[in-house]
């Protein structure tokens, strides 16, 4: 009896502490092999409307690491992923986990605009970590930038350079916009309008939908009959849902594509073929048929590495690739010694001329990319839809060629600024 009782309390004790031991094991894992490897944290939207884009973003980061055989400056690289949903707080929670628990020294991400703004604020409390922003909100680097945050990719307004003129030249005099109601699409619409309104075009209405909208019937019915075209600045599942429902509703007004709308993340989405989208003009940080050796090498590496990927890398794969590559090239330059609080690495990054699959990238004084942008058109190809290069807009900076003062007169991109009805 006594033995039985002892055995039983032991069993209960074991059961109770078992959970604690598992927890301790999980919590302790980070500390064991921390010294040698360079730890890179990657935050991407692996949940929510942008989940498919997040997966491709991870591929981009993996590609940049794989390209170097998983080593930089003689040290092996350990990449740790964390997921967010597109909501700002989730990206901060994910970054904090990577930095404080997994002890990463570098963070690449997050993916979505408003997440990026929140992470920028968090970055200021982590001076020993260097951040590589991949999201596209203007504010991330333009307003109160963080000294330890670099963005080697373009923001929403930069990405759409050249499209305003291209759309006007196509004969679209009055357009209506459909976009998600947050920071990145504000930047896209602003970038488009600065050019388009100057050229003489009118944006007669802006329709905003909540991030993650599934039912677009209300929006489709509000598109004015006298609009020449619709600028669709949606991304991921939002864009796919809109396109499907717009077609079902018998919509016939031509489209103008936002940068993430004509992306492989949308064009190559499973389901009904969307051939009717062919002919849509757009602009973005890449053109699927870009005819440079760098781009072709990137695409073929992507295709051979990821059999389950898109027919061609998406914007997000490219962005995570570029920012991860910037980090690794920077570490190479400083021979793997980033210095106290990463000071030498940051100096190296600031003056770096980064070779990317889409051309050379330099940074401005806010550590924001100045890069080439590609005006494109959607075409049908053997493997589905893709973008075809129409024109290159070289070295687009964050103020879109205006002086800082002129640009600030226009003001930050918001829902209501700018206007030209």
């Amino acid at each position, binding site marked *: 009896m006594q033995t039985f*009782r002892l055995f*039983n*309390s032991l069993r*209960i004790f074991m059961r109770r502490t078992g959970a604690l031991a598992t*927890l301790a094991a*999980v*919590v302790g*894992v980070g500390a064991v092999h921390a010294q040698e490897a360079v730890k890179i944290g990657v935050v991407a939207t*692996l*949940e*929510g409307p942008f*989940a498919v884009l997040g*997966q491709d973003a*991870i591929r981009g980061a993996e590609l940049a690491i794989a390209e170097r055989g998983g080593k930089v400056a003689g040290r092996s690289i350990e990449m740790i*992923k*964390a*997921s967010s*949903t*597109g*909501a*700002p*707080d*989730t990206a*901060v*929670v994910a970054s*904090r*986990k990577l930095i*404080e*628990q997994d002890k990463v020294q570098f963070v690449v991400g997050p993916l979505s605009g*408003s997440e990026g*703004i*929140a992470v920028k*604020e*968090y970055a200021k409390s982590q001076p020993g970590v260097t951040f590589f922003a991949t999201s596209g*909100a203007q*504010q991330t680097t333009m307003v*109160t930038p963080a000294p330890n945050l670099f963005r080697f990719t373009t923001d929403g307004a930069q990405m759409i350079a050249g499209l305003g003129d291209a759309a006007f030249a196509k004969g679209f005099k009055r357009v209506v916009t459909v976009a998600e*109601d*947050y*920071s990145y699409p504000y930047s896209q619409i602003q970038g488009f309008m600065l050019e388009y309104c100057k050229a003489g075009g009118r944006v007669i209405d802006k329709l*905003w939908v*909540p*991030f*993650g909208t599934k039912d677009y019937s209300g929006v489709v019915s509000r598109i004015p009959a006298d609009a020449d075209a619709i600028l669709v600045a949606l991304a991921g599942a939002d864009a796919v849902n809109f396109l499907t429902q717009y077609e079902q509703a018998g919509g016939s007004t031509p489209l103008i594509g936002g940068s993430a709308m004509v992306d492989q993340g949308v064009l190559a989405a499973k389901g009904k073929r969307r051939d009717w989208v062919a002919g849509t003009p757009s602009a973005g940080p890449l053109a699927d048929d870009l005819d440079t050796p760098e781009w072709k090498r990137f695409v073929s590496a992507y295709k051979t590495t990821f059999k389950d990927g898109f027919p061609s890398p998406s914007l997000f794969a490219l962005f995570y690739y570029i920012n991860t590559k910037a980090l690794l090239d920077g570490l190479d330059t400083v021979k793997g010694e980033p210095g106290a609080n990463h000071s030498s690495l940051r100096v190296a990054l600031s003056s770096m001329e980064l070779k990317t699959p889409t051309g050379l990238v330099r940074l401005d004084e806010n550590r924001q990319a100045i890069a080439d942008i590609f005006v494109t058109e959607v075409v049908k190809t053997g493997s589905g839809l893709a973008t075809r290069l129409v024109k290159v807009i070289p070295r687009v900076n964050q103020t879109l060629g205006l002086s800082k003062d002129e640009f600030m007169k226009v003001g930050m991109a*918001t*829902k*209501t600024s700018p206007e030209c009805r």
Partner: protein
Amino acid sequence: MTLRLPLAFTALLLSLPLWASPFVVFQIGAQALGLGCVALSLSWLMSQAGAVSLAQLSVAGVAGYGVALLGGSEFEPSRGWPWTVAVPLALLAGVAAGAALGWLAARTEGLQTIMLTLAVAVAWALFLQQNQVLTNGFNGITGTRAPTVWGVDLSRPTPFYLLSLAVAAACVLVVQRLYGTVFGLTLRGARDDARKMAALGYQVQQHRIAAYAFAGLVASLGGVLRLWFNGQISSGSMAMGPVIDILVIAVIGGTRYAWGPFAGALVFVLLQNFAGDIVSAERFRLFVGVVFLILVLATRDGLAGLWDHWRGGVLRQRGVHNL
């Protein structure tokens, strides 16, 4: 036995900052306590008033936005008042929001309550997302850190954890106290048979509204902790996903003890942070779902039910039969 365990548990909680990393103290400990407060308000309403209110996170959001707008932040319309003014006013707003929700929901039962409070939660999240002037839309309000009080920076992991622990402990104690009061008895009476209670002369509606108002206070305290934990507040934190998360936490934790929601929140936060390390980051939601299903199917009333089962087993072996 009855005293030893709670004492050991209190010691464990209080000493956490001594032996755990700042990450565990802040992101796991403090976050679970803040989330637990919001879930407690739901769990208490479920057990005492029989009302599944999905709008508790929205009420928490009223207080959170209240502190963000009245106190200091990087968003221009913020008043920048000291926390001694901003926090009480925001809590008051939270209680008022809770009472208003109660006024709407008290006349409904069961499924109707769920639908109505869900509608309120969705409407609130969409309002926050689309309003630029007051709430800065989807971006929300950044730069809302916990204040420095008597030279102690409450935004540091350990002070913030201890603050959260104090708030959570106060909520648990008050909720336990309420159980045996006339108010508590009346609520449970109204929950079991509203018509009989009304016939006995009790004002069922008013009691329910008061219950929502009290739950509003608990949720609001959680809301302020959430605001300070995140250092920002935005509509995404109150969208459908997080609303369901609160329900999941309450169900995992169970409703029979006031500490249940905190245990549920701890499990949730651990899964949120580490499930991605156990299974691949792309599939961690699936893992969370499986754990949730197992807990719901294998336990009666979540972790609290599991606890009673365990304790029952231990006490029976010691010859104690009446719990």
